[in-house]
């Protein structure tokens, strides 16, 4: 389970994109729950990268379907530092 702070930060970044007003939880998915298209996801990834000052490689994205998976990946990258 990823760090609470990271998850909270990601919720903040998603909030403006959450047009359907879905309740944000760790298991919410970007594609089917939030219905974000690939271009919006790309912008979100860029925002996450800038927020945490990390590189979230394109190769990882297909594996990341839920908010928690993204938060875990971010945490792992930060710790690898």
């Amino acid at each position, binding site marked *: 389970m990823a760090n609470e702070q990271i998850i909270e930060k990601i919720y903040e970044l998603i909030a403006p994109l959450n047009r359907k007003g879905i309740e944000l939880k760790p298991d919410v998915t970007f594609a089917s729950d939030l219905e974000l*298209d*690939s*271009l919006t996801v*790309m912008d979100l990834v*860029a925002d996450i*990268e*800038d927020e945490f*000052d*990390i*590189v979230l*490689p*394109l*190769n990882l994205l297909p594996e990341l379907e839920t908010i928690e998976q993204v938060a875990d990946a971010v945490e792992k990258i930060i710790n690898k530092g």
Partner: protein
Amino acid sequence: MDLLDKFDSTVALRDSLPFEKADPFKVVMEEIISETEAVIDGRHTILAGTNNYMGMTFNEEAVAAAKEALDNFGTGTTGSRVLNGTYGGHKALEATIAEFYGMEHCMVFSTGYQANLGMISALGGKDDFVIIDADSHASIYDGCSMGNATIVRFRHNDVENMERRLKRLPEDAGKLLVVEGIYSMLGDAAPLKELLEVAKKYGCMTLVDEAHSMGFCGENGRGIAEQLGVEHLVDFYVGTFSKSVGTVGGFAVSSHPKFDVLRLVSRPYIFTASLPPSVVASATKSIEAIKRSGNRRAHLWENARRLHAGLKKAGFHLATPDAQSPIIAVHLPDPMLGTRFWEQLLLEGVYANMAAPPATPSGVFLMRVSVCAQHTTEQIDEIITRFNRTAEKVGLALNP
């Protein structure tokens, strides 16, 4: 489990488009009258979407050389470049391109798509980083998926966004920046000077794809890097024969002393048959002709500017503020209107490209026109007139 079921949504989307009299995915060129005209469905049509920028498809020397090569060397090589597929002509073409770019080495691939696949997948190893523009062509994305490097993407043509990402990468890691000179859908040019200077500051090697800028950008037609005077910052160029050169095939050039090793490790170079001798011969003649085609280049730019200005004045919503390339793209508000516009324009006798996601960036819908150096001024004016007539017929609001 039917493996094709996963494409049902694609089929449904296509079926929802209101084509009645023509289908953009089923256009058949029945007769090619010239570089700029064809017969489609019995109609005499101006070609304004063929990427035949320099109008080289009927270049006399290129056609003659191809015929001679057919007679002397046959219809195909039936082999890989690293087996029996390298003829004298392939070596001569590589020498011609290297000279055209003022570089030491050249590798000719069987398509431009494979040139990007072959270069990016071979250069980007397991511990390396490949940094790409978000609006990159599919061949760049596919080259990335094929290799083992970590892929980092930055916002389209955004130097600051790229630099922020480069800063985060390990200083001593292998890094390859891949950008295009002209982006093929909107026809917009890259700020290559800034991009390459920043990339070099962070220790990147650089690859520039000049597929849609070779032939008419820069004094010798090498591309945007030549036009902006930053060729010294380019480690590898990738290009194609299927646009300005008027045939098919791709290439990479470089002055890197170890460049030739790529012939032994680049799978898209090795595991495919080499180009037929006739194609190689016509590409060679065409590139030689392009080099001396200063007037043709000038006329192509006149055509591009005239079309851009004419459509802008008529009130179309253009993708670029000015003509940055021979690609002039017009925004259309939605797929329905876009479909009807494309269909009506074809009935009016103009063939343009209908460009829709995922080929286009930001989900936009475009009518993409590419002009040719062989278009006459009258043809350009005719294209503008027919765009106007089409807008009126399909009810597209213009803002002159």
